[in-house]
């Protein structure tokens, strides 16, 4: 005898397979969006921390002016190191744009100094003093601490992160709506069971519990598969990026980290919890319209 083993809510294979696919796809997109947002923030941190404390001085003039500027920079309190950037180094920096063929000898390259501020230095004050010292030596220079550039990078990444968060929010809301719709459809299709349960004295919470458990399991399973697929897609994208030198230069810190694991691990839990809540709210609201 099977004795109370059968679930009170029978499985509906075709409908649930379609719902599983939709929730899985939404979780895949949401997890991927989360990974993209996390990677973008990580890349921005890497970029900006690379240039943090670095000062680049462009010198207009001959080699003597460059040497003079290097000496003045080194002598400025708050500067830890300063050295001229060689032509080979400048060509290396330009390689992503001009290719591996090298820079024509006839192309004049700016004379640059790479300086590094001491860790405790007050950056704005140091820049002011350095610029004043170079100017008083009648040198035509531009002092750049990359703050404007890193600020622009940060703004762009913040915007990209916001877009990714909105995408995750929209995908989540879509998922909730889909689960609510599916729950309502199941409730209508299984009205006979609901009526018999009511006649047997079941409270609304008992009936809602049947739907909750059904959709919790569906959400967890679909979320897990979606997260797994997102992990596979992210790993594949990283693999493709690593095949391209230029892309790797642009995206220095792209890799799967513990934070990514957390995002992927949370996906099935969030999908399960959201599915369960959506199912409960839908069932309770629908039942409240009944006698």
């Amino acid at each position: 005898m099977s004795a109370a083993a059968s679930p009170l809510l029978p499985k509906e294979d075709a409908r649930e397979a379609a719902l599983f696919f939709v929730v899985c796809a939404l979780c895949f997109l949401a997890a991927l969006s989360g990974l993209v947002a996390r990677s973008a923030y990580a890349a921005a941190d890497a970029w900006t921390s690379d240039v943090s404390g670095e000062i680049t001085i462009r010198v207009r003039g001959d080699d003597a002016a460059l040497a003079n500027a290097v000496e003045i920079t080194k002598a400025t309190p708050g500067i830890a190191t300063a050295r001229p950037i060689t032509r080979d180094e400048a060509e290396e920096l330009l390689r992503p744009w001009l290719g591996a063929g090298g820079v024509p000898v006839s192309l004049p390259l700016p004379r640059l100094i790479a300086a590094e501020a001491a860790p405790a230095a007050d950056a704005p004050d140091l820049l002011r003093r350095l610029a004043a010292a170079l100017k008083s030596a009648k040198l035509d220079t531009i002092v750049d601490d990359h703050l404007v550039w890193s600020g622009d990078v940060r703004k762009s990444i913040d915007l990209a992160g916001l877009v990714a968060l909105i995408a995750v929010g929209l995908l989540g809301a879509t998922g909730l709506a889909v689960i609510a719709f599916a729950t309502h459809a199941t409730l209508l299709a299984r009205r006979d069971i609901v009526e018999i349960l009511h006649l047997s004295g079941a409270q609304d919470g008992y009936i809602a519990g049947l739907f909750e458990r059904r959709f919790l399991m569906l959400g967890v399973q679909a979320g897990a598969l979606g997260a797994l697929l997102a992990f596979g897609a992210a790993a594949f994208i990283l693999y493709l990026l690593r095949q391209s030198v230029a892309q790797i230069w642009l995206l220095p810190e792209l890799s799967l980290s513990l934070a990514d694991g957390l995002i992927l691990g949370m996906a099935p839990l969030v999908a399960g919890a959201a599915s369960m809540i959506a199912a409960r709210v839908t069932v309770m609201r629908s039942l409240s319209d009944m006698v």
Partner: protein
Amino acid sequence: MREQGLAADSPVLRLDRAGVSFGPDSDVLADVSLSLSPGSLTFLTGPSGAGKSTLLKLAYLGLRPTAGRVSLFGVDTTHLRRRDLAPLRRRIGVVFQEFRLLDHLTAYENVALPLRVLGGQEKAYRQDVIELLTWVGLGDRLDARPATLSGGEKQRVAIARAVVVKPDLILADEPTGNVDEEMGERLFRLFRELNKRLRTTILIATHDLALVRKSKADVLRLADGMVVRVPHAAEPKSPPQ
């Protein structure tokens, strides 16, 4: 609710000028008053469309009256909150003409359903359910699913499901409508036995006037939206329209 008990002479079911309307000029029940005393066995007859099923629906709290009052076990249900209806429903067993068994459950599981809903442990009620199915003659069909049962067998499972929680009131809506005459009489004997052995109050809505005549039970006739008590000898001999 059950703890409140019921005075010996208090009606199990009482309708006071109850009406059900689904809009202007569409009264299904106009002005129904009736009272069922504990331990009574009563037939509800009337022509098709007279509202017998609607009246039973009022009684098993599947519908609220749009006029008048419905009281069960001494409790006025008219304005009860949803959550307060469940304890009353647990004291009522309902049998339908179309059985309303759950197709994905076995006969045993269908009968055990109300006990499962009440949170009972399977090992605590298993023997009772088996005995009940044996009593209705289905002790050898415990694992059969409704699709493999005949109409009479399905109705006996439905009756077993209705009585498994030992209800104070059983409401049956055309319980012999989908079975042959012999099975109809056999089902009625089950109702009669329940009524005598457990003093369960039973209300049976039926078209089966031959069964009504043989039973010698009380008869209520529903027509034109109202109920009248019919002396047994006066029960119409022609079939209802």
